[in-house]
C-alpha cells in the first residue's frame, strides 16, 4: 500500500466507520488531539488489550494443536 492507494480509498468509497457502531464508539474518543500524553496513554491501554487478545488466540490454537 502506498500514498496513492490511501487516496484512492477515500475517493472510491468515502468509507467511514458507521456512526453509532461499536467500532465508531472506540474511535470517537481519540479523534480530538488532546496531546502526546493522552495519545500515549491511549496506546498503552490499547497494547494491554492487544496482548490479552493475542494470548487468547494462542491458547485456542495451542488447544487445537495448531499453535504457532
Amino acid at each position, binding site marked *: 500500500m502506498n500514498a496513492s492507494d*490511501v487516496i484512492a480509498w477515500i475517493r472510491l468509497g468515502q468509507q467511514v466507520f458507521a456512526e453509532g*457502531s461499536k467500532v465508531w464508539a472506540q474511535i470517537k474518543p481519540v479523534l480530538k488531539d488532546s496531546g502526546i500524553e493522552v495519545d500515549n496513554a491511549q496506546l498503552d491501554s490499547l497494547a494491554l488489550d492487544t496482548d490479552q487478545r493475542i494470548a487468547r488466540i494462542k491458547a485456542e*490454537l495451542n488447544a487445537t494443536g495448531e499453535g504457532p
Partner: protein
Amino acid sequence: MKYLIMSGVMVAMASCPGTSVPQAQRHQAVVSVVSAHAVLSAIQDTEALLVCGRVSAPPSGCVPQATHLVVLNRLLSAFEYEKQLVGLVRAVPPGSPTTREIFGLLGQVQDLVDLILADIPPSALKANLVGQLGGQS
C-alpha cells in the same frame, strides 16, 4: 471489498512519507492504530460467535472449524503487526521521520482484514459486522 482502517486524515501523512511528523500527524497515526485495533477486535469478537457448533452460531453461514483456525492465525498476525505499530508510534517524538514503516504495517493489517472477511461465510452477524466497519462490496 474494502474496509477502511486508516482514517481519511492519514492522507496528509501519505502525501509526504519519510518526512517529519509534527504532533498533529503523530496523533493521526494514533487514531489510525486505534481504528485498526477496533476493527480487529470487532472481527475477533464476531467471528467467535459464528463458529459452527457453538450455541451462538447461525444455522446457516457458520464458520467451519478449519476456517476458524485459518482466521485465528490471520488475526494473530494482524494483532502482532498492530503491536509493532503501537511500538513504532509510541516511540515517535514529534518531528521524527517515521511514516513509511507505519504505512507498511497498516497495509499488512488491511490485507489481513480483507482476507479474514472473505473467509467468513455470509450471515446476519457478518452483515452487521460489515455495517459497523462501514464496508461495502
